[in-house]
């Protein structure tokens, strides 16, 4: 199978054509040898995007999302690789569940799926999960995401043991003894009478994890950073050589807790949306490289879990299909970062942190790419999403960077029907 994409722009070079043969990027060949010639209509080619933090919900919560629907959404968002969190039912804390996920992902064929194993059995924080056996089955990291690893003692053991297998540890940072509010603690939560969740609760655990990583000289990755204090501590730690990496999500640089004023549960997630001061600090952290990755924390929920009282509603929003457009519109088009830097955040850095080997576009590399329309504004519509979830706060937003085509291993995984 040979494909030529012509009339395109490569995001980082002057090339206008891409050649694919047998699932790999190839040297140029004559058009009459091609099985398919795709006219990219002047749109921009990027390496396939990588999202190192999604919740695909399968096994156990197929009414929210399946591996097939979640990866279809990923492809529509321009992703060719996603890493799925282990808080499924059963929890992905053993090799059998890991293999099951990989099998389902291969059957769906929409996107490469790299499972993340639980750090502790049942994500219950009492015993280590079988990290070595899970690695043999295919995990690329461990995390108890959905929950923090609550005690410093257990976090230390996870960091130490995982380092024997060269497995990164990703932690959801939230000191639960500080209270489990439904939104950011501050002026808005006080005004609308919702229990708050403080930035201090996130900062305390980020500082703990940095201290442990420094003390043990092992890597640690901070999930979904949302606070100014978190950015500052990670920046300082990196400057002294601590092996800390960090991610944030598009909602933390596009929204604030003001949006919760109407009790719309599509603005409810953990960590919660913070104030403008924190939003700006996240953007600063993205700009100066403190934050390594943009992830979605894609968290589909059923309508019945969201159309309830704010405090009762589940945490989380879907994000795979809006992530690139939000990041491009709010970070690149506004001049905060370059398009090359955006590719670090959405492809090269997550690939490097988890050693996925993605993002290459040289001859012989897997032909993973996505083509984006950067020039025309489009309206993001929730009813067009391929995820089962409808819990997006971005319905109706006018954005740039609509996916036109996604190819994974030489095969089309998403094609916009005009």
């Amino acid at each position, binding site marked *: 199978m040979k494909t030529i994409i012509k009339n395109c722009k490569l995001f980082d070079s002057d090339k206008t054509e891409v050649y694919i043969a047998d699932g790999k990027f190839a040297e140029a060949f004559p058009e009459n040898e091609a099985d398919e010639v795709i006219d990219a209509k002047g749109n921009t080619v990027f390496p396939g995007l990588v999202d190192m933090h999604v919740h695909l919900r399968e096994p156990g919560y197929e009414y929210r999302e399946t591996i097939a629907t979640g990866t279809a959404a990923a492809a529509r968002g321009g992703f060719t690789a996603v890493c799925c969190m282990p808080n499924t039912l059963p929890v992905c804390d053993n090799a059998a569940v890991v293999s099951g996920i990989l099998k389902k992902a291969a059957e769906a064929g929409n996107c490469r799926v790299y499972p993340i194993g639980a750090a502790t059995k049942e994500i219950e924080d009492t015993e280590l999960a079988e990290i070595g056996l899970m690695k043999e089955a295919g995990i690329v990291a461990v995390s108890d995401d959905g929950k923090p690893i609550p005690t410093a003692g257990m976090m230390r053991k996870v960091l130490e043991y995982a380092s024997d297998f060269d497995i990164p540890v990703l932690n959801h940072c939230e000191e639960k003894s500080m209270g489990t509010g439904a939104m950011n603690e501050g002026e808005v*939560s006080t*005004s*609308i*009478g*919702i229990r708050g969740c403080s930035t201090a609760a996130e900062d305390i655990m980020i500082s703990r994890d940095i201290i442990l990583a420094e003390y043990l000289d092992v890597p640690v990755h901070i999930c979904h950073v949302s606070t100014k204090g978190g950015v500052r501590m990670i920046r300082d730690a990196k400057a002294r050589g601590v092996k800390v990496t960090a991610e944030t999500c598009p909602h933390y640089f596009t929204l604030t807790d003001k949006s919760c004023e109407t009790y719309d549960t599509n603005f409810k997630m953990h960590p919660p949306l913070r104030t403008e001061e924190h939003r700006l600090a996240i953007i600063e952290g993205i700009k100066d490289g403190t934050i390594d990755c943009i992830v979605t924390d894609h968290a589909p929920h059923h309508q*019945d879990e969201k*159309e309830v*009282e704010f405090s009762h509603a589940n945490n989380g929003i879907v994000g795979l299909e809006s992530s690139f457009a939000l990041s491009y519109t709010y970070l690149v088009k506004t001049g905060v970062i370059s398009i090359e830097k955006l590719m670090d955040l959405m492809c090269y850095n997550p690939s490097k942190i988890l050693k996925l080997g993605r993002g290459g576009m040289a001859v012989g590399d897997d032909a993973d790419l996505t083509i984006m329309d950067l020039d025309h504004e489009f309206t993001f519509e929730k009813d067009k999403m391929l995820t089962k979830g409808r819990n997006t706060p971005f319905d109706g937003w006018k954005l740039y960077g609509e996916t036109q085509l996604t190819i994974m291993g030489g095969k089309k995984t998403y094609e916009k029907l005009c």
Partner: protein
Amino acid sequence: MGLKSKDLLGMKQLTPEEIMEILDTAKTMKLVISSANKKTSHLQGKSVVTLFYENSTRTRLSFELASKYMGSASANISATGSSVAKGESLLDTARTIDMMGTDIIIMRHPQSGAPHSIANKIKASVVNAGDGMNEHPTQALLDMLTMYERFDTFEGKNIAICGDVYHSRVVRSNAIGLAKLGAKVSVYGPRTMMPIGIEKMGVRVASSVADCVKDADAVMGLRVQLERQKSSLFPSVAEYAKFYAITPEMLKLAKPDAFLMHPGPCNHGVELPTAVYDCDQSVINEQVTNGVAVRMAVLYLLMARRNNL
């Protein structure tokens, strides 16, 4: 005439003019309550349902009498002994009540924002009778009516509110309403019960009960729930009563003609010594009458809006 919005969800939505219209209407309604024949036809042919997910004899009875005095058909649903207890969702329950032709749903719910989450999905008017820690607008309106009967204007008046500010929807609604009419609100309570950012709602956070009450035109005590002690928000009732109660000595720091209010029910001897509750300055019993009057006014003005449309 009438309110701008279909619902009364909180003081946040009301303009100063709407608040004054409610208070002026309530003054008229008070005449009805004190008359021999407590009957008007303002709500004749209308149906009013109270939907309470939290127990409250006082507020519920107050709304019920208000709607009955104005001639409406009314029904009550409480969270026990109905489909509510069987796990039917709030939205489903509200839609069912709505489809039965209900004009007004009066709702109390332990979750902030619960009435907001149904209001825009049903035709009936929703009156918030207390939602979690958010608002209790008719309580603030009755407090304001009680003040209005004694003040010629709210402008520049000092209102002191002491107690568990964090969990109090009464404080939030009063702070918002009083600020809209130009009064100056001071609050005080244990720091563990003082929500972050409360000063952004236009209130002054005082440094002691004395500082809060000093030169006040009206003083309001708040109920402190004794179970808060178990969650380490204060160490003991004795200590609370000593450092945070409005004692007779404290009340002397207020203006000579200041009066004392409390939304009730009161923990005697905790936030207020019994001597204070019963003192000459106390208008707590009058607040109860004003509650019915204000609720009559609100129900009437919501229906008046409908008739204008």
